[in-house]
């Protein structure tokens, strides 16, 4: 088992190299003089020259790359122009906010989409099946930012049920002591139920937005995978052996159907990490997505680069985890690979 993990880790290395090279190139292909961009709109010719020397833009490209990589190794992603803070610090501070939102959203989506997909496949042609297909097609057609705005309008403005979309916590509450950075966990750890409820209330709408967005691909894939598994020959054997419906559907069909569903999660994460940025803008969520968007508007390039790199590395790790999970479930991959 350790051997499999080791082998998989090896395949991650070329991917990481590719990611680093691409993010490097992304800043070096800026039209015009990159030093001007990094110095900011208010720079004098002197400060531009300083930046140019400091960030090594006057060196040949391969040398720049070496500097870039060694900076990365030291954990240096540069500084933000607008805040002056180190990008790495800001990203580290803001990451839990995004993570809490995304993970919660994914969890809710899975809890709804997977059973929905299974039921739709088992009761093919029924109301549930049609509802599932409609939800799936509609779900992929809704722009995530539009859904968010609609939810805000209905549940905050019209009904007053949800709090104002101004971030993770209402100003009346103080942020809990940072243990994990997840407000829900930290407030519980501190025994502060009031803050927990307030944080939860702020989370509901953005989480529902992300969940609506994710339900469609997951439900669709679960349904398709289940249909395929249910019509397979080994399920026919299971039925012919008189096994109970639970065994047939769950132990035989679903476990096999999980495999393509798990593979889909890679794609779902890709969409989610992107949707995260949009949702953070709608709900003024202080995560790394909004950090990048603010930096973009201010033409502040170092944070954008840091953001892209962080997200990419995160995503590579997530994919690795998915691969490993797949290997746990599918013995063919384990034993032949």
């Amino acid at each position, binding site marked *: 088992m350790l051997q499999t993990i080791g082998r998989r880790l090896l395949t991650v290395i070329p991917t990481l190299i590719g990611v680093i090279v691409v993010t490097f190139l992304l800043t070096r292909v800026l039209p015009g003089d990159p030093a001007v961009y990094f110095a900011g709109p208010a720079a004098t010719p002197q400060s531009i020259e300083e930046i140019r020397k400091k960030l090594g833009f006057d060196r040949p490209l391969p040398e720049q790359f070496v500097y870039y990589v060694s900076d990365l190794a030291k954990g240096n992603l540069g500084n933000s122009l607008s805040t002056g803070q180190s990008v790495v610090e800001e990203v580290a501070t803001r990451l839990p906010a995004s993570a809490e939102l995304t993970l919660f959203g994914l969890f809710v989506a899975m809890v709804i989409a997977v059973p929905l997909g299974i039921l739709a496949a088992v009761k*093919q042609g029924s109301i549930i099946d049609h509802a599932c297909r409609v939800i799936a097609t509609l779900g992929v057609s809704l722009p995530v930012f539009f859904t968010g705005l609609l939810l805000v309008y209905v549940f905050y403005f019209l009904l007053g049920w949800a709090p104002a979309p101004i971030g993770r916590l209402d100003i009346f509450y103080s942020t809990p002591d940072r243990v994990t950075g997840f407000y829900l966990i930290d407030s519980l750890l501190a025994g502060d139920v009031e803050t927990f409820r307030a944080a939860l209330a702020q989370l509901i709408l953005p989480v529902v937005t992300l969940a609506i967005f994710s339900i469609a691909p997951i439900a669709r894939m679960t349904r398709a995978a289940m249909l395929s598994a249910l019509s*397979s*020959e*080994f399920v*026919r*054997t*299971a*039925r*012919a*052996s*008189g*096994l*109970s419906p639970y*065994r047939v559907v769950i*132990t*035989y069909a679903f*476990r*096999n159907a999980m*495999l393509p569903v798990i593979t889909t999660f890679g794609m779902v994460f890709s969409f989610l990490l992107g949707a995260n940025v949009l949702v953070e803008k709608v709900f003024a969520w202080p995560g790394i997505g909004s950090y990048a968007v603010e930096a973009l508007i201010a033409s502040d390039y170092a944070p954008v680069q840091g953001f892209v790199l962080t997200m990419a590395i995160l995503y590579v790790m997530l994919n690795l985890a998915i691969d490993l999970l797949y290997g746990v*479930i*599918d*013995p*063919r991959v384990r*034993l*032949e690979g």
Partner: protein
Amino acid sequence: MTEPLPLLDVHDLTVEFATRRGIVRAVEQVNLTVARGETVGIVGESGSGKSVTSYAVMRILDRAGRIADGAITFSGVDVRHASESAMRDLRGREMSMIFQNPRAALNPIRKVGHQIEDVLLQHVQAAPSDAREKAIAMLDQVRIARPEERYHAYPFELSGGMCQRVVIALALACRPQLLIADEPTTGLDVTTQKAVMELVVELTRERGMSTILITHDLGLAAAYCDRVVVMQKGRVLETARSTEIFKVPEHPYTRKLMRATPRIGVTLRDLLPPDAVLPDSKPAAAAAREADEPLLVVDDLIKDYPRNAMSRTLASLFRRRDIAEDAAFRAVDGISFGVKRGESVGLVGESGCGKSTTSMMVMRLLDKTAGTITFDGQDIGAVPARDFARSPLRGRIQMVFQDPTDSLNPRFTAARAIADPILRLGTARGARAVRARCEELAHQVGLPGELLDRFPHQLSGGQKARVGIARAIALGPELLVLDEPTAALDVSVQAIVLNLLQDLKTALGMSYLFVSHDLNVVRLLCDRVIVMRAGKIVEQGSTTQVLNAPQSDYTRELLTAIPHPPI
């Protein structure tokens, strides 16, 4: 003396399927009984409804299917109107089924031992404490070696024959009264086939079980069944004891099936209906002159498949010398043979013996690793496969493929498919000349002209096979390689196509290299036979000598494994 009630009584059964084209009757007014301890064979070609009947008996029909009429009584239970939970109790415990394609019939990600346990626990034939013991005992009963180890195996780790044994174990674990075997040996090698059938017979006889054997293979049915039921297009045409049905078949269809089955002691013509018109087989004048000269000579041919380059690199990185040096898989291991002009040579062997790889190399679709392939005195082995399409010799060696559906481009009409070699390498120029040639070829292979403008999905299996043959002879090749050309066809269509192939060979003066696993067919069509095993030639010689008086044990083993109908 009254006869005891049959175990299974199917009365006037009709099964319908709802399809996009409307309601289709797959099974119509079928009557069938199986007594206790009896083995009944249901024989029929594709579309006869034989499998659907058994699915109806087990009530595992597709969602779109339903029992429209009739009654099914099993051990006194009204199957048609029983509740689903009552049926679940019956399935696996009182009646069970084994299927074609055993590996697909097993859950790929569940250990085989656990799968057997599932059945035992479901029908309360074991408690959680002794389920494992009993599962291992079942594996032992189906003759799987080292059952305690194999208990933990996954289906992909087992061979096809072993998978089928596991499926049998699943089916017999709860000691049912009736076993339905749906084409259990199709797709298995003939030696494995024999082993599996003997196992089934032994186990069912031991337990006094009844069996229904569903097959398209008359010989198989005759060899292993007490009674035979013949079905066609959803109806039962004839039911009789297997000894009678082969000696005095009553229904014309049964007679036709009987006649069309390749067996010992008949000629190709005997496979056809008696009213068929016989041509005078005057061989082509030119061919008579050149007969007996060597056309194809294969000398010490070797084909290696290198192991995955990546794993070798990684292996040497990690200093696993044993893997790095274990360079290749040798599919063909130094074989030598020849085909003379006008001769028909059969290349036989079980799956994995290298016969298909050899034929691909002869065809120059695949490159050899070592050895020579000489055609009409020229070394064609030296020309790489990707360049051979441009060689002047290309048109002289052609092939008829096994799967008629796969070998036709779904977007080409039959005419366009046949015209392809003519357009590329032929002499006819201009649309009219090409079309005329296509029509001529269609006529030669007995394909009605109006079918030329149809697409493959609008043609039957036999028609598609003819299109493939017309395309293969379009350039007048001297050597035709046929890779199991009739394996995918019904036996009556096979008889026609085999005769067609023989007549074309005579008329066009071709030589054949006929690759097959079916020794009976080879006996009918070939002058000489080459037997292969694990990449080597085990025996070669004239058909009469090899098949009637084989020298090698392996050939003898193959011959005895073929089920013989009692004719």
